[in-house]
């Protein structure tokens, strides 16, 4: 399972000088009230690989989308070669020499590699397939990208498709190449080859920006690391001088306690969730139980198997037999007999998508997960549901306090309160909360936390979060997940727990 990255025996070439190819100056981007990027300053040099390290939602993609011309900054500007530039679309950026390899490939499946690379760049009305193939083969060889230019895209692996995307940028002579989480789709072998290609490109004077949340990769690959947290540059480090991965992890996730809440542990009651030897779907031998009145936090850097765990528990994905028991029933039996009340409630990360219907009002969104008491055979009693929705709006202080408001008109905090109100109304016995306070302001976070602690009266809570503080404030125990395995189960009461979580998140187990 453990994969060794190629060792980095390289010193970035000096011949390209110390003049930044691109400078981001005070770049700020807001989406509504959320500040995605807060006065970012960053210099990118030719011939060097700059890694942008940060959690999901830290603002990495927003920042690079501004550089690639997809978004316009609200404040600040971009300088290329000392001159201020402004892009109105990605074509402008491409012409200025900035290209981005997105996670989602922009390739025409039925066409060949050569046709895709040269699409829109053929240079003449009549084209000669053989000559196109030769042209593409030439660049591929220059940069050590192994690919058959005559192959059709639909025959290629993900790694090969990525190479085609890279070739597209190289053919357009892009000088700054941005890679958005490029290894997410690659096998370890392909990752190694990608790294070698990236080094080769840097040696030829290209600037590489590598976006990732995977520590080892970044340390193995980059010449410079910039850490992004909550939309700000937290700091820049030289990978050669990194003393501990744990320290890097902590800087990425953040450690300062922003908010505190009073929590008195409750006497745990009956078991509500048991996960037993759960292996598969990217998970490995996961074991834990949650009892009534208890909060268990699963923390980890995003992408370490949290999603599979949640989806399996919430019935979105089928786990192997006899691995998950909810309310003391086997998974299959529990979901076969699922009821509206006294059941399982899921509070997803994706509030305006998985949790709610954005173009429907609050009454419809309430009815989404419970119809008990509001239905007579096939008929819905909307009037009764509306009265109840009004009640909940008042009780949870949802604004605007109108049942006719559409989900999309609510702010993140109010939407989360709506989801909580709906789910708590069902009086669940198990609550699965995924990043419940992500993107919320302080007061909304406090409100959500308060509710999650109150709910222990009736249920057990599985809290999956990347926010260490949230875990420490709410949970009785913290399970640290890394590459699909629970590396440690730490009681929050212990004094040394906060210090032990960071190293475990970075994969340093404590044998």
């Amino acid at each position, binding site marked *: 399972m453990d994969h060794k990255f190629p060792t980095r025996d390289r010193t970035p070439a000096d011949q390209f000088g110390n003049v930044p190819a691109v400078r981001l100056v005070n770049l700020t981007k807001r989406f509504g009230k959320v500040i995605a990027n807060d006065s970012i300053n960053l210099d990118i040099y030719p011939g060097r690989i700059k890694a942008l390290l940060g959690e999901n939602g830290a603002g990495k993609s927003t920042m690079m989308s501004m550089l690639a011309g997809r978004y316009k900054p609200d404040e600040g500007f971009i300088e290329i070669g000392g001159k201020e530039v402004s892009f109105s679309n990605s*074509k402008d950026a*491409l012409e200025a020499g900035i290209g981005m390899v997105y996670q989602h490939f*922009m390739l*025409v*499946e*039925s066409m060949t590699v050569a046709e895709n690379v040269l*699409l829109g760049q*053929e240079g003449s009305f009549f084209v000669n397939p053989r000559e196109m193939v030769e042209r593409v083969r030439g660049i591929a060889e220059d940069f050590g990208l192994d690919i058959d230019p005559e192959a059709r895209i639909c025959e290629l692996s993900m790694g090969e498709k990525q190479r085609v995307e890279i070739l597209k940028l190289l053919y357009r002579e892009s000088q700054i190449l941005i890679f958005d989480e490029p290894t997410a789709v690659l096998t370890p072998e392909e990752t190694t080859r990608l790294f070698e290609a990236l080094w080769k490109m840097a040696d030829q004077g290209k600037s590489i920006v590598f976006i990732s949340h995977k520590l080892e990769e970044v340390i193995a690959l980059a010449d410079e690391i910039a850490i992004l947290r909550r939309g700000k540059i937290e700091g820049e480090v030289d990978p050669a001088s990194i003393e501990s991965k744990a320290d890097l992890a902590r800087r990425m996730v953040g450690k300062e306690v922003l908010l505190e809440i009073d929590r008195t542990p409750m006497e745990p009651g009956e078991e509500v969730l048991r996960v037993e030897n759960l292996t598969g779907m990217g998970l490995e031998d996961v074991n834990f139980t949650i009892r009534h009145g208890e909060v268990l936090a699963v923390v980890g850097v995003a992408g370490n198997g949290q999603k599979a765990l949640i989806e399996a528990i919430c019935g979105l994905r089928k786990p192997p037999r006899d691995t998950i028991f909810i309310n003391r029933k086997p998974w299959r039996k529990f979901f076969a007999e699922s009821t509206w009340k006294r059941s399982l409630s899921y509070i997803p990360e994706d509030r305006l998508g998985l949790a709610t219907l954005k173009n429907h009002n609050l009454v419809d969104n309430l009815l989404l997960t419970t119809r008990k008491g509001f239905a007579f055979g096939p008929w819905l009693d909307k009037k009764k549901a509306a009265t109840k929705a009004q009640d909940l709006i008042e009780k949870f202080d949802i604004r605007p306090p109108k049942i006719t408001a559409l989900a999309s008109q609510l702010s993140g905090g109010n939407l989360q309160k709506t989801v909580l109100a709906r789910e708590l109304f069902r009086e669940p016995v198990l609550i699965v909360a995924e990043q419940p306070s992500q993107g919320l302001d302080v007061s909304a976070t406090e409100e959500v936390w308060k509710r999650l602690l109150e709910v222990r009266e009736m249920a057990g809570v599985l809290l999956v979060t990347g926010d260490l503080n949230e875990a420490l404030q709410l949970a009785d125990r913290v399970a640290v997940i890394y590459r699909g395995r629970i590396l440690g189960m730490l009681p929050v009461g212990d004094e040394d727990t906060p210090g032990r979580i960071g190293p475990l998140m970075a994969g340093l187990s404590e044998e």
Partner: protein
Amino acid sequence: MTELIVPLLAATVQSGTPVLFATLGEMFTEKGGILNLGVEGMMSVAAFAAFVTAYMTGSPWLGFIAGGIAGMLMATLHGIVCISCLGNQVVSGLALTILGVGLTKFLGTPYIGMAAPGFDKFAFPLLSDIPVLGNIFFRHDALVYVSFIIPVLFWFFFRRTSLGMAITATGEYPQAAAAAGLKPVRLRYLAVGVGGFLVGLGGAYLSLAYTHLWTNGLSGGRGWIAVALVIFAFWRPGRAVIGAYLFGGVMAFQLRLQASGTNLPSSLLLMLPYALTIIVLVFSAFRGRGTEAPAALGTNIEPEG
């Protein structure tokens, strides 16, 4: 035997020609990602426009071009609805057929039974002297000879020109085409327009060469056959030729059978070419690689943001 087969095959080529034009037209449109079910309506209007133009000016060639332009204008209507207004392609295409057929009947009734100068058959120099093949392929009107060149041009355009590649990319994955700096909206209008022109030529053939007289219901479902043949052809011009001549062959055969005074009911015989097309389509679909269709066929390009 040869005296029976050769005229039948020659009639096959003639019956297949209008369907060939229409099939290639629809194929061109679909290559760009737009499904146009209005072929039947476009053919009707084009047949009428061609007839009236030839009748008024006395020039069959002007009539032929007018048919193409009429098809292109009808197709542009479909383009505006689907490409600019993001309307549903199926609904718009069906509406276009209803509009075209209805309009033709409304405008064409006064001309029923009238004759216009059309295209006459002539032996193509040299080539018509080839034994057997010369009689089958090279003793037709000029439009048949035009129809021989178009599949080759079609193939060349999509394989050997950057514009053809751009249209293919637009039909497969318009977002990728846009990312490569192309303009998918314009490319789709181009595909719809050129495709409409070719369909229009098929319509013009019906009134100027197939018959020289005007009558109602001239297209007689050939537009629908063209839509089906595009699927049969796996979006390849070579197979479109096979499909069109297959339809033409059965059409010619049943006409001859009717003329020979058989007892079989004529309505049953008339049905034959259409029924056969459906059967062939079903078999090719079984054998088929469903992945041959342009991936973005029938889906509109939603503006970003």
